[in-house]
């Protein structure tokens, strides 16, 4: 446990000094701002195509804003996180910076644990920041009651991010190159999307956690319905984490 705190301090200093912290927060602030903006602009843009398109556009609602938010974060945001963290373990091994620490007695599992904790702290705080910005702007620009359960919509996404971080961690421990680990992470997501076609497995699929957010926000679906997917995601996350630890113990530094 002491090893974990020591290594976490080093990790914290690293994201600060390499300016990664600022970069990641900036990007997610942007996502938070862009979502309500796109919701406001979509009808404007469509109507600028001229009046020959005789479609009546409904006024954008707060639900459109949240739709953009989840679209941006689940289709671009999480991959940016993957890009950020795909070199977290293998980059360190490549640089050889772990040799000294491990020979001086730093526990190898502590390295994996601290990396995982740091990854989760950064990802979750970036997403929460983005969520609050979208929430504020949505409340200001769309003062309606269409999206009553914004927190319920966010919870499964946060659980998914924990799962996703564990996959990134596993990828970066499994492969020596950051590109390979990035592809591994993307590959896992593709596999999950494919598995989602098989109906009996759907309820357990972590991908469910980033597909139903809007129904949750709207209130047409209850958080309970995702219980199985949440449980299986957390289970898979723990498995990936333990597996990474096992791999790390055997890894040549």
């Amino acid at each position, binding site marked *: 446990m002491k090893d974990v705190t020591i290594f976490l301090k080093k990790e914290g200093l690293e994201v600060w000094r*390499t*300016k*990664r912290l600022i*970069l990641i927060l*900036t*990007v997610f*602030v*942007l996502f938070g*701002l*862009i979502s*309500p*903006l796109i919701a*406001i*602009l979509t009808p*404007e843009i469509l109507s*600028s195509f001229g009046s020959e398109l005789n479609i009546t556009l409904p006024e954008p609602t707060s639900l459109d804003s949240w739709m953009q938010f989840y679209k941006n974060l689940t289709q*671009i945001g999480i991959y*940016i996180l993957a*890009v*950020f963290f795909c*070199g977290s373990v293998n980059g360190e091994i490549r*640089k050889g910076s772990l040799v000294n620490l491990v020979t001086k007695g730093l526990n190898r599992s502590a390295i994996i644990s601290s990396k995982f904790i740091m990854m989760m702290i950064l990802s979750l705080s970036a997403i929460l920041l983005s969520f609050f910005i979208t929430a504020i*702007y949505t409340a200001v*620009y769309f003062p309606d009651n269409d999206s009553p359960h914004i927190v319920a919509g966010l919870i499964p996404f946060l659980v998914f991010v924990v799962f996703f971080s564990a996959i990134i961690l596993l990828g970066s421990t499994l492969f020596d190159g*950051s590109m390979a680990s990035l592809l591994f992470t993307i590959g896992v997501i593709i596999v999950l999307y494919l598995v989602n076609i098989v109906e009996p497995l759907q309820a357990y699929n972590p991908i469910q956690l980033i597909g139903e957010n809007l129904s949750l926000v709207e209130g047409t679906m209850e958080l309970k319905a995702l219980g199985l997917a949440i449980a299986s995601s957390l289970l898979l996350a723990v498995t990936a984490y333990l597996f990474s630890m096992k791999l790390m113990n055997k890894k040549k530094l």
Partner: protein
Amino acid sequence: MNTEIPPFILDNWLLFLPILLIQLTLMATALVHVIRHDHYRIGNRAIWIALIVFVQIVGPVLYFVFGKEEDE
């Protein structure tokens, strides 16, 4: 050339302004870094400049993560 700012941009400046500022800052810092350095981990200067200028948000992020050399 008469470029009029569409009214909906003026109406929503509270949203536009921060986005514009953040995106430009991100792009500018990445561009300055690319131009000041000769060596990149992967790619070359032309590729990075094109990516940073034309791919919003993702371009600069990719540069800082993959292009920028680590020790300086």
